[in-house]
C-alpha cells in the first residue's frame, strides 16, 4: 500500500514527536484527563513505544470529576498498564476553594494549574506531553510542538523559538519544563475519525443520551452538555461538520470573563 491518508500523516508526525521527546528528556510525564484527546495520546504513545507508555501519566483530580470518568480511569489504568499518578490540591480544598463558593477561573487555576505545579515540584519533570490542539482556542493556534515554560509556568509567547525541519528546542534549565504538544495539527474531527478508525476506548459521556451529549469534558459543575442526538461516532462527525460553534463552548471557565483562556494559559494552564 503506497499511499497514506491524512490520519496516517498525523499519526506518523505525532509518533515522531513522541520519540524525539522521549530521547530529549530524562523525566517525562503525561497529564491525562481521560478525555478523548488524552486517550488518543495514550494510544499514540502505545504506537510509538510498541505497546507501552514508558512514563507516568498524571491525573489532576479536581475532586469535581464525573463518576463515569473516574470509573474509566480505573479501567484504562489496568487496561494499558499505566503508571498512574493522581494529584489533588489538598491544601486548596482544605481552604474551601470550590465551585460552590468561588468563580470558575479561580477554581480552575487552584485545582488544576496549582495542583500541576505541586506535582511538578514533587516529581521534577522536565517535560510534559500535552494534547492541546491549534483549533481549540486562538491562544493555542500560535503554539509550537516544543514549548518552554519557565519556573513560574509562564509562556513567553512573544519570543518563541524557531521550529522547522523536525528540529525542536529541547533544552530547559533547572526548574523550567517543556510542553510537548504533539496533537497541535489535529482538529476535533481528526480526533474523532482517528478514534473511529482505531477503535480507541473513550468515556461514554461523549455519546448522546436523552437528547444530550458532552462535547468537551471538564469539571462536573461547570461542564454543560449540548443538545445532540449523536450517539455514534459517525453521528458525532456529521454533527461537527455542520456546527460552527466552538468545541469548548460548554466549558464555563473559558467564558467567565473576556480573554479568560488567555489569562489561564499565561498562568500555566494547559
Amino acid at each position, binding site marked *: 500500500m503506497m499511499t497514506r491518508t491524512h490520519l496516517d500523516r498525523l499519526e506518523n508526525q505525532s509518533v515522531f514527536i513522541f520519540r524525539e521527546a522521549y530521547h530529549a528528556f530524562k523525566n517525562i510525564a503525561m497529564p491525562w484527563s481521560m478525555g478523548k484527546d488524552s486517550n488518543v495520546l495514550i494510544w499514540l504513545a502505545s504506537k510509538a513505544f510498541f505497546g507501552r507508555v514508558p512514563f507516568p501519566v498524571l491525573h489532576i483530580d479536581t475532586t469535581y470529576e464525573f463518576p463515569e470518568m473516574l470509573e474509566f480511569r480505573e479501567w484504562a489504568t489496568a487496561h494499558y498498564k499505566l503508571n498512574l499518578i493522581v494529584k489533588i490540591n489538598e491544601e486548596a480544598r482544605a481552604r474551601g476553594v470550590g465551585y460552590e463558593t468561588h468563580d470558575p477561573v479561580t477554581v480552575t487555576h487552584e485545582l488544576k494549574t496549582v495542583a500541576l505545579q505541586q506535582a511538578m515540584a514533587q516529581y521534577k519533570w522536565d517535560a510534559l506531553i500535552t494534547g492541546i490542539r491549534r483549533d481549540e482556542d486562538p491562544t493555542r493556534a500560535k503554539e509550537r510542538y516544543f514549548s518552554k515554560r519557565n519556573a513560574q509556568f509562564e509562556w513567553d509567547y512573544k519570543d518563541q523559538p524557531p521550529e522547522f525541519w523536525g528540529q525542536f528546542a529541547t533544552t530547559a534549565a533547572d526548574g523550567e519544563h517543556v510542553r510537548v504538544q504533539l496533537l497541535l495539527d489535529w*482538529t476535533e474531527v481528526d480526533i474523532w475519525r482517528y478514534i473511529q478508525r482505531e477503535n480507541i476506548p473513550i468515556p461514554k459521556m461523549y455519546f448522546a443520551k436523552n437528547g444530550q451529549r458532552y462535547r468537551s469534558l471538564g469539571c462536573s459543575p461547570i461542564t454543560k452538555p449540548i443538545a445532540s442526538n449523536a450517539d455514534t461516532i459517525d453521528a458525532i462527525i456529521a454533527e461537527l461538520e455542520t456546527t460552527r460553534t466552538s468545541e469548548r463552548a460548554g466549558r464555563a471557565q473559558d467564558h467567565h470573563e473576556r480573554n479568560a483562556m488567555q489569562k489561564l494559559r499565561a498562568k500555566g494552564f494547559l
Partner: protein
Amino acid sequence: MSATRCRSYGQRGFSSCRCCVPTDQKMSKRQSSTKDRTSAIQHPASSGEATLRVVFVGHVDHGKSTLIGRILSDTNSLPEGKLEQVQRACAAENMEFEFAFLLDALLEEQEQNITIDTTQIPFKTAKRNYMIIDAPGHKEFLKNMITGASNADAAVLVIAANEGVQEQSKRHAYLLSLLGVRQFCVVVNKMDLADYSEARFLEIEKKYREFLKTLNLETNVFIPASARFGENITVRSTKMQWHRGPTLAEALDAMTPLAPPIDLPLRLCVQDVYKFDDRRIIAGRIETGTLQVGDELVFSPANKTSIVQSIEHWQPASTAATSPRGNGGMAIAGDSIGITLQEQIFVERGYVASHSKDTPIETNRFHADLFWIARQPARLSHLYTARLATQEVKCQIVSLDEVMDSSSLERNPTKADQLARNEVGRLTIQTRAPIVLDNHDRLPPLGRFVLVDDGMICGGGIIHGGVYTDRSAIKSKNIFWSEGKITAQARATQHGHRGAVVWLTGLSGSGKSTIAQALERELFIRAMHPYVLDGDNVRHGLNSNLGFAPEDRVENIRRVSEVAKLMADAGNVVITAFISPYRADRQRARAIAMEGNAEFIEVFVDAPLEVCEERDPKNLYKKARAGQIREFTGIDAPYESPVDPEIVVQTNQQSVEESVASILERLLPRLK
C-alpha cells in the same frame, strides 16, 4: 476618524498592516463592500482528503490580511456570527468595514495589539480543508516564516497592482525557494486601484516572472484580483473578463498536498533503539524512499549492513480491521516505524539506513547556504552543534565565501568573518565527527540542517556540492577505534593544538615536498608538533616491500593513511606529500583519519603539467617520456584532480611563501 478606536477589536482594526505600518494610510481610500456572497458559500469538505497547508506572503500593505479575511468570509469558514459582529462593531464606531478586520478580529483574541507569531487559520472549500499559515512581523519575519512555511505544501504571493513588485515580493520568494516550497500562485491584488487594467496586470506578471526565473521558480498561475471587492477570489470577476485563468479558490483547489517522496533513495533516520522486551527495535522515520522486510540496509556512518527481519507495529487485534497499518512488510516515506534486524549490528540514534546501491555522503566537511536567525551573529571558528535529521555533531564554520544581500538578493564575495541576523551566507562547515548527508537538490530531508548554540536553534542551512562516492569501493573494516586512556582533548590541551592530517596531493614536480617542508617549519616555529610523511621516509622503511604496480600504489597510500591517523591521534599535525592520484584513495585516507577523529584537510597543490615537466626536479618526466618509467602520473597514468579540496594552491602563480601562507590562513583556525 483615524483617531477612533474600535471597541471590539481595539487598535488593530485600523492598522493596514498587522505589524507596524502607520494606520491612517489606508482608511480614507475605500468604501466598503459586503455584497452578497451566498453564491460563493461552499459546503465544508467532508471527505478525508488531506489538508493543504498554504503560506501567505507579500509586501507590507499589499493586502494579505484583506485577502485572508475575504477567503474566510467567502468560504463560510468564520465562526458563527463573526462577520456580523465585526460589521456591527464598525457601524457602532462609525467606521467602514474592511475584510482585513475579520482576520484582525480573530487575532485580537490572541494578542491585543500586534501579531507576533506564526498563526494557522483553517478554512474549507468544497474540495478540501486548508490551513492558512500567516507569518507576520517584520523584525522576526524570517524566524516566523521559516517556522510556518518549512512544511507548507504551497504558497500564495500577494502583490498589489498599484505598487507592483516590491522588495519583500522578491525576498519572500527567495526564502520560499530556499525552503523548497515549489508550488505557488501569485495574486495581483488591488486591481480595483488599477482600473482592472489588463495591461497593468501583464506588466507586473512579466516583471515578476523574470525575477522568479532567477530563482529557478516557475508558476503559470497569476491571478488578477481584488480581495476588497471579492473579484476572482472565490467568484469569477465580471470586471476582468479578459482573465482566462482560475480564481484564487480554483487555483488552490488545483494544488496538491506534497506527496511522500517515495521515489527517492531510502533514508531511514534512527531516532532510538528500544529494548522494552526481548525485541531490539530500531525506531525512526523514513524520510525518503521505501523499505521492505528482507531488504539489506547499510547503516552510515558505521558502514555496516544487516537485513530487515520485521517491521514492528503495535496494533491490537480488535482494531486491525479498521486500521490500515497492520498490514504488509513495507513502509514508505513519512512513516514512523520500528524494525528489527537479522544480524544484531551496533546501531544508535543518528545512524542513517539506506540501500547499498544508493548511499548518502559521509564527510566531515560540506558547503551550504546558511540563513541566520539568532541575535548573536554566526562567527567563524566558533563551536556550534549541527543537527541534521537525528544526527548531532560539533562543528565550525571554517570559511564564509559569500553573503547574500537580503534586499538586492545579490551575492557578494566577502572577507567578513561573521554572518548577521537575517543574512544568508554561502559557507563551508567542518564537523568534529563524520556526518551523513545528501545534497539538498537531490534529497531535501538529508540536505538540510540547523546550527544550535547554547541549546538555541540559530540558523538553518541547505547543503550543496557534496560529492558522492561508491561506498562499496571503500571497504571499512568495522573495527572500533579504541581510545587510549589519554583523550584527544587532553593531548590537544597539552600540545596547544589538535592533531590533524594535512594531505597534499598533486603532480610530481608540483611542489608538494617543498611546501610540506616549509609548512612544517612554519608550524614548528609556532611551537606546534608537525611531521612530514613523504616518499623518502616511507618508501625506504615501512613500505620497502612495495613497488609501483597499481595495487602496490594503493597499499602504499593506505599505509600512509593509517600512519598519519595514528600520528594525528597522538596529537601531531601530519603533513603528507604524495602524488596520491586517485580520488578513491584520498577519500579513503579521509575516512581513515575520521575514524581516528582527526581533522583531515586536503590540499590540492596545483600546477599545469607543462610547468611540472619543465621543473622536473628528479628527471622523472624525461625518463617517462623516454619510456624508461612506465605508468608515470600525468604521462601514461591518470591524475584525478580533487573535486572539492579544502585548500587549493597554484604553485605556478604563487610563491612557496604565498602558498604556505594561504594554507596557514585556513589551517590554523581548525587546529584550535
